């Protein structure tokens, strides 16, 4: 296959996917539009998390916390009669600022330490939300959130949100793509692949990580902001630890560090979870079944992908795609597990 043919195939695929994405909300039922919006929101969050995991080699188990910060910021401001667009804009800023402030100390941690500290951060945040009822509505939640208005435009129907979400998602994907192709992006990728090389680069690496962490939190924040206007009601239950894990699963499914993988992972996992929920909720079946099914299937997806196709769906497909190239470029890293962006396995030294 010639290089030109390949790129024209990729381009036409992108156009087809883009057009069908735009057309979909017009034909979907209202409950399907909700799934559509959910996929879009997850894509926004997962793009940021994938950036952090793939390009900085770090796992955050607190991404749902930043999603929650965005949702509560927008929700509280909207309830207190701020213009809804201002409230929405404040969501990513609040999430980003909090991420920056906690990131300065937390990003000194790596691996399991970062996983547990981000998880701890999320649990602390949930306790704080529950205990500041005057502001957040506490465990009961925050309701009566007015509709979103962008200038004269009222965003009220599911279709409106579908388009809004996708405008934001595309913007987020483009920003991230440009960022990863820029010089700092490549530096971050190098950092993810050679964990030990990171310390050599020193301060610069730390500041990239912090920017990444802040940006990924801002993405989660804006997604949370849209979510709160779309749903109209939030409570701490909407941001459980399992949601953070779900985001990690989406990253892993799509392919760690692949920008388009964020969408694929979000779509695959959301659709599977919807199918399971509808399968498991039947009056004749035990009430625990949907939870059992979703936990079990999420877990199996995560384990199977990491064990069998560590590069994820998109990564594996693009590897296969590259292999069809007549002059396949030089081999990958010295590792039979495929792309080990999560850092080097313990392996023999080569001389």
């Amino acid at each position: 296959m010639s290089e030109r043919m390949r790129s024209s195939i990729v381009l036409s695929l992108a156009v087809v996917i883009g057009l069908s994405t735009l057309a979909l909300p017009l034909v979907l039922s209202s409950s399907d539009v909700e799934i559509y919006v959910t996929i879009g929101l997850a894509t926004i969050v997962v793009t940021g998390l994938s950036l952090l995991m793939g390009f900085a080699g770090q796992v955050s188990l607190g991404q749902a916390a930043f999603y929650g910060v965005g949702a509560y910021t927008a929700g509280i401001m909207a309830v207190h009669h701020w213009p809804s667009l201002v409230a929405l804009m404040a969501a990513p800023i609040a999430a980003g600022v909090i991420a920056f402030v906690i990131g300065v100390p937390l990003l000194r941690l790596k691996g399991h330490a970062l996983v547990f500290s981000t998880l701890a951060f999320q649990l602390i945040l949930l306790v704080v939300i529950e205990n500041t009822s005057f502001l957040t509505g506490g465990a009961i939640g925050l309701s009566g959130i007015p509709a979103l208005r962008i200038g004269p435009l009222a965003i009220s129907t599911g279709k409106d949100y579908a388009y809004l979400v996708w405008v934001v998602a595309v913007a987020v994907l483009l920003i991230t793509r440009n960022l990863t192709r820029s010089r700092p992006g490549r530096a971050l990728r190098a950092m993810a692949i050679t964990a030990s090389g990171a310390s050599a680069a020193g301060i610069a690496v730390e500041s990239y990580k912090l920017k990444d962490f802040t940006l990924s939190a801002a993405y989660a924040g804006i997604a949370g902001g849209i979510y709160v206007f779309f749903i109209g009601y939030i409570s701490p239950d909407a941001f459980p630890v399992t949601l953070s894990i779900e985001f990690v699963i989406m990253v892993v499914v799509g392919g760690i560090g692949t920008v388009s993988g964020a969408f694929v992972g979000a779509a695959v996992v959301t659709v599977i979870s919807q199918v399971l929920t509808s399968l498991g909720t039947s009056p004749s079946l035990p009430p625990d079944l949907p939870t059992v099914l979703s936990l079990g299937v999420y877990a199996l997806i995560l384990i199977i992908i990491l064990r069998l196709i560590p590069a994820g769906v998109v990564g594996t497909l693009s590897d296969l795609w590259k292999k069809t190239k007549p002059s396949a470029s030089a081999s990958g890293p010295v590792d039979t597990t495929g792309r080990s962006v999560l850092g080097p396995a313990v392996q023999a030294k080569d001389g």
Partner: protein
Amino acid sequence: MRLPAVADVPSREEVVPDDALLATYDLVVRYSSAVALDGVSMHVGGGEMVALIGPNGAGKSTLLNTLSGILRPAAGGMVCRGRLAHVPEGRQLFPELTVEDNLRLGAYRGGSRDPDPIYELFPQLHGLRKRRAGGLSGGEQQMVSIGRALMANPDIMAVDELSQGLAPIVVSDIIRHLVVLNEEKGIAVLLVEQNARLALSITSRAYVLENGRVSKEGRSEDLARDPAVHKAYLGGQVGQ
């Protein structure tokens, strides 16, 4: 002992000399699709001191790791008729454990766990025996690494980049110990060195490894005089 091998050309095993303690024939090792060793045949006889020189990335450490069973050959094979101990590049101690524990773990495959013979060889390690190995100087670490390998009671030692990062005076001290071990205990040595001048000066035979192949082999003193070897590995080198 027959080490794991995928014998593409089994008859080639006959090429291994009868007196060889350790030998490879047509050894091929791959990383993913890159070839690290491309048909290497070499041998070390009992009590012999052999050098393996060559540029960075030629496959020297890969060869040693294959001999130690850490890497699996894709084709060809190897024969080891004695106990091999590997003194790896960069010393590779257990930094959290004490010097004595590091030494004792060298005898994991069996034999005596008493480190006293090592303290006789390197008296200064005796005073450091309760210290964490991670806190030692480079030269002391190299002694522990050699000592740990000796605890396996080897017939042959593969020593990888002994001089790396050490002061010349420390290197010559440790090298002297290696020569003594070779002469008095008859332990064969396969010496992998960037510092070709040093390696060729103390060994009797040598192999030059380039791009995963043996490009030259012969008596060390002949190789040291070989114009191509001299230009590539000895010319630019200062000191020693």
